[in-house]
């Protein structure tokens, strides 16, 4: 059973465009939704996160839109830069719980 789904599997955008990465989940108990950014050869690093009590979270060029009813969320990367090229993981879990469930990831390529 795949609890967390991400789409698309890979995405290519031009520099300056907005990249949209999608995530859906099945477990209603999840209430903390971090997005991790992973560069080749490195571990994932927390990029931005949202709690289920909110429907939007912004941090610079990165914005999470969250729809609790539909169990979906998306990460928008505005004004994409080549340095944003990485794999992005949606990894929801219960806040205060320890079992993180990673999605399959979206590989983003930003072309200059």
């Amino acid at each position: 059973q795949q609890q967390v789904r991400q789409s698309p599997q890979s995405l290519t955008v031009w520099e300056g465009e907005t990249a949209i990465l999608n995530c859906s989940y099945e477990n209603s108990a999840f209430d903390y939704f971090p997005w991790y950014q992973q560069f080749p050869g490195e571990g994932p690093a927390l990029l931005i996160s949202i709690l289920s009590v909110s429907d939007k979270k912004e941090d610079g060029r990165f914005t999470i839109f969250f729809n609790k009813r539909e169990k979906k969320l998306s990460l928008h990367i505005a004004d994409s830069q080549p340095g944003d090229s990485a794999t992005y993981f949606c990894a929801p879990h219960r806040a205060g719980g320890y079992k993180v469930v990673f999605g399959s990831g979206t590989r983003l390529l930003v072309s200059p």
Partner: protein
Amino acid sequence: GALVYQYPRRTICKSGTSMRMECQAVGFQATSVAWYRQSPQKTFELIALSTVNSAIKYEQNFTQEKFPISHPNLSFSSMTVLNAYLEDRGLYLCGASGGYAEQFFGPGTRLTVL
């Protein structure tokens, strides 16, 4: 700030041998430590979760006999890959949590099996 270190960063072992990796939390008390494996072209699979004062819980397809874990205090954990074979290669990630929402990840230990 909260940091998680892992070492070694990269290691190579011969098929059938064992390899130990370590995880250290700095700046917070790691009340729980989770070990994950990212195989080539795959996402992160949870191997086991270790919580202070509780038994280590292994996920399906992973066993203590294959991946023994030690979590002796609130800043350190280690995991050994016993009798490693080709299918064990990948990036092994340690995620530590102090009981709040966020889990902090180390850079990983990349295991190559020859």
